[in-house]
């Protein structure tokens, strides 16, 4: 049996006051698969991504990413896991304001292994930003900042890329550029989990997982051929909840 990139079993993330941002989710994502997490605001997409990258911990259930049970890791071990395995792309870019584009990319290299400026410049070239490498974030457009964020996410050759609304703050041209980058990454065989409101971006994924009130309400293929309304909630059986979609 092929190793899965992500395996969630009955995962719940509850906050004080009883709010369940993620509620009994079971999900399996295969290596190399491109999955889009879709749903209205507050449906739990970002929380689910944070559980996958180890920045947050579930209050119940198990989270396995690249074969690692994240619940077994403390904060620093989770940081080590992230730098070895995960590329993070944020809607708000989160670039360090006093570092240039190339320095922001080198930052991820620094915490991963060792800094290589030429490699960082190549990463920027791959996102068509070689000419903006020495600009500060404040001197870059939103689309350019997002591409720096992507270059930073890719610099350590991560096995899985988690992106939260990567085109949410971009105009159409810049969104197209980012989408093309994702398509290339997918062709290279990387696992992509992208939370998005953008139906155009969602349609490019191999599988769309729809969330509502923290639960998976539907999983389908973008062309609708494999549409499979689901039983949801913590009581749903694992076998029924987890859909296996092999990357093409």
């Amino acid at each position, binding site marked *: 049996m092929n190793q899965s990139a992500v395996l969630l079993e009955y995962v719940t993330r509850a906050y004080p006051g009883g709010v369940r941002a993620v509620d009994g989710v079971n999900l399996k994502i295969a290596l190399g698969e491109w999955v889009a997490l879709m749903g209205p605001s507050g449906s739990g997409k970002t929380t689910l991504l944070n559980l996958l990258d180890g920045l*947050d911990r579930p209050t119940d259930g198990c989270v396995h990413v690249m074969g690692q049970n994240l619940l077994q890791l403390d*904060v620093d071990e989770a940081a*080590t896991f992230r730098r070895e395995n995960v590329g*993070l792309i944020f809607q*708000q870019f989160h670039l360090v304001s*006093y570092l240039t584009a190339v*320095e922001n990319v080198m930052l991820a290299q620094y915490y991963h292994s060792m800094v290589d400026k030429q490699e960082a410049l190549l990463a920027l070239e791959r996102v068509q930003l070689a000419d903006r490498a020495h600009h500060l974030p404040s001197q870059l457009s939103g689309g350019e900042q997002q591409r720096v964020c992507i270059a930073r996410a890719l610099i350590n050759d991560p096995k899985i890329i988690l992106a939260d609304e990567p085109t949410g703050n971009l105009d159409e041209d810049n969104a197209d550029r980012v989408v093309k980058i994702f398509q290339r990454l997918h062709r290279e065989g990387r696992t992509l989990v992208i939370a998005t409101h953008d139906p155009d971006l969602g349609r490019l994924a191999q599988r769309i997982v729809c969330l509502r009130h923290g639960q998976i309400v539907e999983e389908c293929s973008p062309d609708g051929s494999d549409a499979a309304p689901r039983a949801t909630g913590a009581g749903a059986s694992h076998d029924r909840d987890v859909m296996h979609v092999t990357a093409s």
Partner: protein
Amino acid sequence: MFFRMLIESFVRRRSRKLLAVAAVWIGLSLVIGLLALGLDVGDKLNREMRSFGANIQLQPAEAAVDVRVGGYELVAPGRTVYLDEADLPRLKQIFWRNNILAFAPRLTTQARLAGRSVPLVGTWFNHHVLLEDADPFVTGAAEVFPYWQARGAWPMNPESCLVGAALAQELDLGPGDRVELTTDQRSTSVRIVGVLTSGKDEDEAIVAPLSVVQRLAGLPGKVAEVQISALTTPENKLAERYGRDPQSLTPAEYERWVCTPYPGSVAADIQNAVPGSSARVVRRVAETQGAVLGRIDGLMLLLGIFVLIASTLSIMGVLSSAVLERRGEVALLQAVGAHRADVLRLFLTEAVAIGLAGGVLAALTGQVLGGWLLRVIFDSASEPHGVLLILAPLLGLLIAVAASVPPVWRTVHQQAARLLRGV
């Protein structure tokens, strides 16, 4: 990359960093200024309080033993003992020589003037004490007794003298008059150059250069006592214990007593230096000085603590908010793989740099501030204090680190996911 991040953080966020450095600088300048003033104020006040007169009196050892048996002195009349004037330069060769501010010998006899007997007091005026390996030390009655007022001039040669104000009025004498002083041994003619007001016995006497009185008294090179003005530290319990029973001190306590310029320890040092002498602390003066200095020291300490607390709180406020506004950056560093120790190291190194920069500036401006206060209050210049040049950066470093650790610690222990969402 670590140093690149540090440097870029300072270069590209310089306004915020300058604000933080300025907070440390200004806050610590007040503290260092007060400390500089505190270090000088005791010395300056001590010098100011020389107006009280001598605080140590040196006499011949036998004369100092005031023992009477059946109403008779043990030292027989006619066997009066004296100190040698030639031994007095030793006062500037003792361990506490730098604390000896001034001294003046005194020899008193009776002389006949205008058919009546008047006290004749001999002392030094503007006397140059010759020292080995040092410039001559200029001292005399005017330095030891700042409250002596001479209308006219001070005697500058063996043919001049002062006349006490009461005697001058009684005999109708004044500057310019020449008088004939006669003793059993000799007589001499001296010119009055000033009228002395001391508020004490000298108002009834002729006060002449020591050599004149020695010659008239037939006691060349002899002095009856020496009045000494010395910089001393207020006596504390240790000094009081020594005063009550020197044997009660442990060797370590005795060492501390000897190495502290208490009036008693300075007096003991003087006594050991001058053969056949006995040094006595003039309690009235020493205790008044001690009481005033003790209160000033307490006041300065209290002020220093208040200013240090106020400055520390204000510095902590600025530095803490500087860290808190970078919580998103902390979370991002953790998101890209930084461990909590990595983040702490980065922020604490920044804090160390800010603290040291502010501290070094404060070491300089604080001393300038302290010097200015000293000039305004005491009309006196201050010397730079080396200890403050080290203390200020050290304090700056400690305060900056103490201010940065709690917010960074709290931030790295918060959930990075929430911080990235700006919650």
